[in-house]
């Protein structure tokens, strides 16, 4: 008993038995394949051929109820000729002989290029492993084992690769595609072999099915993992197919729009990075002052392109995914293109990782330079300590070590304006007043760091009573990553009185004093330098944190707490 199929061949209706139908279909597929070099006339030629086959079949089938069988098809093939006979390429047909295996035309004819398809017939999940196995010419089991091993090594990332391949690779559906997948010649004998394998498998499946039913009846459950997974994925597909189709299209369209927006904005941002610098979604990364691009081996445009590729390539796959979701006819890319893209992605990744490592290993060396300036104050006089903001870029309210660095243009050159200044007051070992300016910077090497400190521009001023320290410095080092600061030590001899103006409030940094008064409480008070250190002359008791100071002084002299040191 055989199933029959109804076909319309060249405008005529035929009953044809299933096996014969497969044979005819494969025959036409193979003809299509052998005529592939003539795409212009292909459809027309095939139509003519179908019309002729239909005519030949009509001669055989007198009665409408008669069924075309394999013998009929075989006869037709013998009349029409093997698929190779259709090819117009003379070199592929005639001059080559079997005695001359070195003939290049010969090998050209014999070796069809293997193609990477998914194998839908030998699959666990999507048939990718089996397809790949055919492509490299090994048993699928080895690829599967490798895949599972790589899952452990790659922490699951091969799943992504698998999904991408599943999405992008077409499944081998027609016999000629199946033969191409296995790298076999597409000729009648191979096609017939494949067909008979198919028939065999179908009958085997039927048999298995029967056995399964029997087993189920007995209450037993025994089935291979493979069948289960295959059944699960196939069954899921079938049941949900119709419900999912609509949702799938919607998701596909949303994804498609998303990916297009992504790609467009990526391209826009790439151009803006290299031209305008201040637009686009990578503004943060590509901000001109971002340290990432300083002292990197690769120029900014190159890293921009690499990062661009790193993001774009997944977007392309995303686009393909959405196209594939929308239309199952969409075949995706062929393997070389996919491999090129994946390769490019990995190369970009390597470069970016390299730059990242280079970047993070940067600025490890810190260097400083000291500079001492003699201050001409009269001994035992009172010095007023003030800080000045920049005329243009700063203000008194911003005179704080904690304010962010700004980038300014000075003589058309970008520079950093920073308030990273620490002021301390120390005791002089002699009678002289000094200002010690310690500039600190960072660099790849210690030498670089020192060189960077020398570029820092810092000034101060004095007049008779006041020490006017700039509350800022300007540096040409605009690398955000490089941390620069200036430590100012005001060194005064014992007996000198110093007054902290309001402007230095946020620049003082742990100024040591006998009473352990906080920096912020020192403002607007007079301090005197004693042998033990600074001592406040007019601070209220509540700011004095050194309890010993109060105790000892009170123990020693019940009258005054300050007289002792004066």
């Amino acid at each position: 008993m055989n199933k029959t199929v109804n076909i319309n061949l060249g405008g005529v209706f035929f009953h044809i038995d299933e096996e014969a139908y497969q044979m005819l279909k494969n025959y036409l597929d193979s003809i299509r394949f052998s005529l592939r070099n003539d795409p212009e006339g292909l459809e027309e030629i095939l139509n003519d051929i179908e019309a002729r086959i239909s005519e030949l079949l009509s001669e055989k089938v007198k009665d409408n109820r008669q069924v075309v069988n394999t013998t009929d098809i075989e006869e037709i093939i013998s009349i029409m000729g093997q698929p190779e006979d259709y090819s117009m390429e003379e070199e592929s047909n005639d001059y080559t002989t079997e005695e001359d295996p070195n003939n290049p035309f010969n090998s050209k004819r014999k070796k069809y290029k293997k193609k990477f398809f998914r194998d839908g017939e030998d699959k666990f999940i999507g048939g990718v492993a089996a397809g790949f196995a055919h492509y490299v010419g090994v048993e699928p089991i080895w690829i599967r084992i490798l895949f599972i091993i790589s899952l452990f090594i790659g922490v699951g990332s091969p799943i992504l690769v698998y999904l991408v391949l599943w999405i992008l690779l077409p499944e081998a559906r027609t016999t000629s595609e199946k033969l191409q997948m296995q790298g076999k010649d597409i000729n009648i004998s191979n096609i017939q072999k494949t067909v008979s394998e198919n028939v065999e498998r179908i009958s085997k499946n039927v048999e298995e099915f029967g056995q399964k039913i029997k087993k189920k009846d007995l209450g037993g459950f025994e089935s291979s993992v493979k069948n289960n997974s295959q059944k699960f994925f196939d069954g899921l597909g079938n049941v949900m197919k119709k419900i999912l189709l609509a949702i799938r299209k919607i998701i596909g369209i949303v994804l498609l729009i998303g990916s297009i927006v992504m790609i467009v904005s990526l391209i826009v941002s790439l151009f803006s990075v290299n031209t305008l610098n201040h637009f686009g979604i990578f503004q943060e990364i590509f901000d001109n002052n971002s340290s990432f691009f300083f002292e990197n081996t690769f120029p900014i445009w190159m890293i921009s392109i690499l990062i661009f590729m790193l993001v774009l390539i997944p977007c392309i796959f995303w686009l393909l995914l959405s196209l594939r979701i929308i239309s199952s006819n969409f075949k995706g890319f062929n393997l070389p293109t996919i491999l090129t893209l994946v390769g490019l992605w990995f190369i970009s990744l390597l470069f970016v990782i390299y730059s990242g490592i280079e970047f993070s290993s940067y600025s490890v060396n810190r260097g400083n330079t000291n500079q001492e300036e003699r201050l001409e104050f009269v001994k035992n006089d009172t010095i007023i300590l003030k800080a000045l903001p920049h005329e243009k870029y700063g203000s008194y309210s911003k005179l704080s070590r904690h304010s962010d660095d700004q980038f300014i243009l000075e003589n058309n050159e970008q520079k950093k304006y920073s308030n990273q200044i620490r002021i301390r007051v120390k005791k002089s070992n002699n009678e002289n007043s000094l200002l010690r300016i310690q500039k600190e910077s960072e660099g790849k090497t210690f030498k670089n760091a020192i060189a960077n400190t020398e570029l820092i521009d810092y000034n101060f001023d004095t007049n008779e009573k006041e020490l006017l320290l700039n509350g800022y410095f300007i540096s040409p080092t605009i690398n955000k990553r490089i941390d620069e600061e200036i430590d100012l030590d005001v060194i005064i001899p014992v007996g000198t009185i110093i007054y902290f103006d309001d402007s230095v409030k946020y620049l003082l940094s742990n100024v040591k004093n006998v009473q352990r008064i906080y920096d912020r409480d020192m403002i607007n008070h007079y301090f005197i330098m004693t042998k033990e250190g600074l001592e406040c002359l007019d601070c209220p008791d509540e700011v004095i944190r050194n309890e010993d100071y109060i105790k000892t002084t009170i123990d020693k002299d019940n009258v005054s707490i300050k007289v002792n040191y004066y």
Partner: protein
Amino acid sequence: MKIENTKAQMRKGVLEYCILSLLKDNDAYTTEILAQLKEAKMIVVEGTIYPLLTRLKNAGLLAYRWEESTSGPPRKYYTLTKNGNNFLNELHNTWTELTTAVDNLTKEKTNENE
């Protein structure tokens, strides 16, 4: 060299000439062309003809029209175009020259051999 290949090649070389000649006086549809060619043992399998006819048509040597048939679907009738006619005449001249030349050569050879 296989004799079969050489034979097939010789036939194939003159196949275009034969097809054009068949259509010189009257139009014909594919099956008729095939039947005549087969009868003359110009072709063994039919497959070869289809790409050739399409190629001749695309080259502007042949044209075709659809004609209703009493049995079955419409048939494709091929006809020789003006270009095709010129082409055929040239081929004919060449063929005559060729056969004369080949005849002379092969005659001499056979005579010598005897």
